[in-house]
């Protein structure tokens, strides 16, 4: 099976933000219902990686009646290999702030927060300056909305929305049980919309040009464009805005170094795709695309034939073991055992059948871990072990 969709470049995200005042004032002169409909018909899905429909998220939160609600921009960009949010916040921050304010208007929230990744502290002075300018304009048009930045402190797990709330409340970043979902019970137990930086920047495009401009990009079930952070063995690392739905083969032709052995789509919690599957893999959300369709937060890491997949997996597992919050057993112990296990197989201390046992362990983790971290270890583990079993052993 071959994916026939082509790689197409797009240019919306980084396009000028100078008309933010107009976009904001025009948007809040419309009814919340109109804005929600606009978002729903654009079919924008969350750009953090999970792909929850943004319009629906806003709608659910708007429907809850509560005098206090919050809008949170998730800028805890921690997935290895992603660096798009940092670029958005330095190049077009007003788009993000406008998206937050419009969201506040739609759901009835007066306070917004940006949860900024600790490593991005250098963005803080400039962002604070921009927020002051933004709030000044809001005051001028008598629109009541404030934004505050909350600094992360170096924990990958805090990108998980409920762990992020816990962290903002001054606690250890341990994920909560879901349900209740943030639309009912979020930050401080109040209804909260939490969106990724890029998602908010896309809402700006949608409110500015209308849903159709956005919907016309991409393919069925995967509408619009998306930023991709390209790294690894590539002659042109960097950030690229591409339409969703392209085939991985096209992507590799554009960005590979001619010797691409595999691509890790979606960072450590994503999937590794070996060369033989490039043709049948598309980048987008699950749906009726031909072949396999992989969602992603935008991390695309290319590996050429000089790379050992054992080392790659070893690095991912090391990462997960370090970043597991330790709250639930499947994840805490699972990550440790997987790491120990592959090392033992490599050293010949364990029989190669032991890899199958480890694969079953990842299945258990997928079913029983409390949050996305423990559940997604299986993605990279099984896709690497199944496709490069030989490299795990010799």
């Amino acid at each position, binding site marked *: 099976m071959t994916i026939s969709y082509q790689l197409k470049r797009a240019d919306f995200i980084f396009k000028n933000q100078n008309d933010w005042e107009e976009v904001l004032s025009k948007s809040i002169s419309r009814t919340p219902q109109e804005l929600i409909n606009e978002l729903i018909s654009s079919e924008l899905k969350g750009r953090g990686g999970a792909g929850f429909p943004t319009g629906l998220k806003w709608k659910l939160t708007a429907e809850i009646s509560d005098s206090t609600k919050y809008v949170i921009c998730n800028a805890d*960009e*921690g*997935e*290895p*290999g*992603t*660096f798009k949010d*940092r670029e958005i916040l330095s190049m077009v921050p007003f788009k993000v702030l406008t998206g937050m304010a419009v969201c506040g208007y739609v759901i009835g929230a007066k306070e917004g927060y940006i949860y900024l*990744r*600790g*490593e*991005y502290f*250098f963005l803080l002075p400039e962002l604070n300056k921009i927020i002051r300018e933004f709030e000044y304009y809001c005051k001028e048009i008598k629109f009541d909305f404030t934004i505050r930045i*909350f*600094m992360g*402190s*170096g*924990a*990958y797990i805090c990108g998980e929305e409920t762990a992020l709330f816990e*962290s*903002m*409340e*001054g*606690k*250890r*970043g341990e994920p909560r049980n879901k349900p209740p979902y943030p639309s009912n019970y979020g930050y401080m137990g109040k209804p909260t919309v939490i969106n990724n930086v890029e998602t908010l920047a896309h809402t700006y495009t949608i409110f500015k040009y209308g849903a159709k401009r956005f919907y016309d990009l991409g393919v069925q079930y995967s509408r619009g464009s998306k930023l991709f*952070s*390209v*790294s*690894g063995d590539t002659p042109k*690392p*960097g950030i690229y805005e591409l339409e969703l739905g392209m085939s991985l083969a096209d992507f590799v032709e554009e960005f590979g170094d001619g010797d691409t052995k595999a691509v*890790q789509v979606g*960072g*450590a919690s994503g999937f590794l795709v070996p060369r033989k599957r490039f043709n049948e893999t598309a980048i987008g959300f699950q749906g009726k695309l031909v072949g396999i369709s992989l969602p992603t937060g935008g991390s695309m*890491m290319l*590996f050429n034939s000089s*790379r050992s997949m054992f*080392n*790659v997996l070893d*690095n*991912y597992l*090391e*990462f997960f073991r*370090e*970043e597991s*919050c330790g709250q639930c057993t499947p994840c805490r112990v699972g990550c440790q055992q997987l790491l120990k296990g592959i090392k033992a197989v490599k050293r010949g201390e364990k029989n190669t059948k032991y890899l199958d046992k480890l694969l079953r362990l990842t299945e258990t983790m997928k079913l029983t871990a409390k949050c996305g971290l423990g559940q997604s270890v299986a993605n990279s583990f099984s896709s690497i072990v199944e496709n490069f079993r030989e490299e795990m052993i010799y």
Partner: protein
Amino acid sequence: MPGIKLSEKTIGIIKQVCSDFRNEGSELINVLHQVQGKLGYLPAEVQEVIAKELNISVAKVYGVVTFYSFFTMIPMGEHPISICMGTACYVRGAEQVLSEFKRQLKVEVGQSTPDGKFSLNCLRCVGACGLAPVVLVGEKVFGRVSPQMVKNIIAEYKEVGASEAKSA
């Protein structure tokens, strides 16, 4: 760890930060950021003062300090060196760079040199994967670092005074 006796001045600084955040327990992380910024690290004695001021248990403060990798209970070097161990950096040879730093500075990860000039740490992805492998010294970023470059990076900070290195 031997106990430290905090000076009145240090206690005053901590109390001031806490009251800047209205002594609210929910502001714990902001308080810790500020205090660490002023004192350099967060030893147990400092945590006790914070717990008392915010009216929460010391265990809770300790739990948060040890959960987040940004908070440290031991003093850092004058020039903290951090090596990115994110996947992109890792496959491009961050481990060799790290061992070269270890060899030249004669310290392990998480330790400082005896003269207090350098400390060595690993971190996860600084979001500069296009420059892999990446090394941070203080706030300065070095990209595409090879083991051969390690000597020069260290020399840069050894020779010049602290203030000049910061402005570089």
